[in-house]
């Protein structure tokens, strides 16, 4: 095997803020740029789950969209099983793209209200199966996600939010993918339904040996499903570590602050240690370390120089001046494996 299952190196996505034609022609200054994802380098072994966590504006959703091909990267590489994924979904080699699927956040907008369930869940196979085999495959998929054959001819509006997410998972499984990107799949669901869907995802992953990239703002949910966790802030990965390491010994000040901000239902009345200020705009990130204006440990150096990624003794990759570690080797593992 040529390196890890999924590898990202220096993945970057910038959005230019659109300007009216006249301004574009007349203005001398360069257009404003939103640095949604900035130099993200991560790796995921097969059959595991990478949790990507962060608050709004951190770039996690954009990262997910770049992975599945809904956005084209501005720079950097994505490799699946050592092969490069270049461009958007339509530009990539079809055989490779078929191995990737996505589950979206909004269960009410991710299923076509005018399609019947049997057509929705077999859409990835459209044109490849006869009507009869499509129906059979649909029944099979529904059973896999805990729904029944009687649901085949129904419409999405006849299902609850949790059931719709199950349908979304069924659709994602239709083409037998290897990588499924889940973008906040349970954020819009009630607690008890969320538990059902999370259990379904975990169980399906184990049974089929899927690799998952799980995006969420909820650290508790991330802790439940992930094997490794990447914490993002303003487009960059600030910490990336195996799950146990991240939650037991968080290294980056932002990670630590986030963990303290989560209320523990078992201990009511505890006031959260709030992180001061608000997340800055991605249009004008602070100089140096993007977190320094809100960081309790900030030093003068943090304002001047952006911290590089380093590996701690505990096995976490952290981008912080105050955390000691060995600098990260920026060469792609897959390249290294190939050249020996």
């Amino acid at each position, binding site marked *: 095997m040529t390196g890890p299952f999924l590898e990202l190196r220096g993945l970057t996505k910038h959005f230019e803020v659109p300007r009216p034609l006249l301004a574009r022609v007349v203005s001398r200054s360069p257009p404003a740029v939103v640095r949604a994802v900035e130099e993200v380098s991560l790796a995921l072994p097969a059959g595991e789950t990478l949790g990507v966590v962060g608050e709004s504006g951190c770039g996690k959703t954009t990262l997910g969209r770049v992975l*599945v*091909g*809904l956005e084209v990267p501005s720079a950097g590489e994505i490799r699946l099983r050592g092969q490069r994924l270049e461009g958007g*979904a*339509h530009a*990539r080699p*079809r055989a490779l*793209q*078929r191995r*990737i*699927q*996505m589950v*979206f*956040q*909004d269960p009410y*907008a*991710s*299923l*076509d*209200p*005018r*399609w019947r369930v049997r057509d*929705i869940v077999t*859409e*990835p196979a*459209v044109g490849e199966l006869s009507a009869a085999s499509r129906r059979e495959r649909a029944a099979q998929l529904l059973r896999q996600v805990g729904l029944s054959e009687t649901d085949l001819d129904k*419409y999405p*509006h*006849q299902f609850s939010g949790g059931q719709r997410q199950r349908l*979304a998972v069924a*659709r994602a499984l239709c*083409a037998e993918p290897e990588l499924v990107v889940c973008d906040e799949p349970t954020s819009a669901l009630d607690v008890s339904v969320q538990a059902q869907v999370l259990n379904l995802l975990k169980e399906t992953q184990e049974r089929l040996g899927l690799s998952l990239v799980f995006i969420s703002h909820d650290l508790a949910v991330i802790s439940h499903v992930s094997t490794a966790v990447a914490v993002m802030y303003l487009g960059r990965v600030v910490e990336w570590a195996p799950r146990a390491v991240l939650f037991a010994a968080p290294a980056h000040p932002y990670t630590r602050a986030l963990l303290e901000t989560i209320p523990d239902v078992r201990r009511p009345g505890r006031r959260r240690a709030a992180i001061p200020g608000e997340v800055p705009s991605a249009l004008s990130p602070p100089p140096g370390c993007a977190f320094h204006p809100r960081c309790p440990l900030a030093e003068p150096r943090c304002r001047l120089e952006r911290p590089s990624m380093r590996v701690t003794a505990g096995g976490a990759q952290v981008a912080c001046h105050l955390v000691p570690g060995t600098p990260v080797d920026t060469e792609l593992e897959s390249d290294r494996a190939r050249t020996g």
Partner: protein
Amino acid sequence: MRLLRGLLEGTGRGTRIALAVVVAYVLLAAFARWVAPQPVQDLRSLDLMNASLPPAWNPDGNRAFLLGTDEQGRDIVSGVIFGLRLSMGVGFAAVALAMLIGLAAGLVSGYRGGWLDALLMRAADAQLTFPAILVAMLLDGVARSVLPRSVHETLGIPVVIGAIALAQWVPFARAARVGTLVEREKGYVQAAQVMARPWWSIVLSHVLPNVMGPIVVIATIGLGNAILTEATLSFLGVGIPPTSPSLGTLVRTGSAYLPSGAWWMVVFPGLALAGLVLAVNVAGDGLRDGLDPKQRSTVS
């Protein structure tokens, strides 16, 4: 079938009456040849002796010609029926063509964006600056001068249809474009993109069905407008050639005899036209609500 049942479920009484009227008109027009007492296109059936007869309830009238006759002895009832057929045919065809053009432009424009979007929308804006009648007259005038008379006679109707469609496609395009912009962000469209389905396939199977709601509303209003536009053009003499008269033509020829007291030649075609357009608009308004599958389930 499901569509029809669904359409009717969500409607009120006024809508159903209007719908019934429209259906009656359509049937009348479809079976014109059998329903009309006199085959008015056949000049041999005309007898000048029957010219300018008032309606049957008038002492000078003739029971065979219920609503009277025109100056050439043509039965008004039959004239109206055949005229209806022509008016509705042209109206439906023009709206259908406008819808086709508008949908194609709007869907592609909204989905692909970029320079194509800009180009099509500027064309739409340009189109809107010309009043519909003017566009139709322009097109018809050009056709008249460019084509030899015989060709113009046979192409007369398609030219009118094309002219009206050209004047009406923009609202369809705009509605389709707006709807497409919304649909493009929906999860099911993006899921299809991740599946690397070809863009036209995604547009036809996901975007089109979901933008049809407002399109149908525009179509029903457009139908009434198209029928009126055709009537206006015929009234002005630049529409359908008078060999096969539409309701507009009948109003035109009939109005010349109004000062002499032959009111029936203009009133009945006019009433038929007004009734048709009214019924179409009311029915269309009501039908729109029946198209949404979500509105038929229980309240969640």
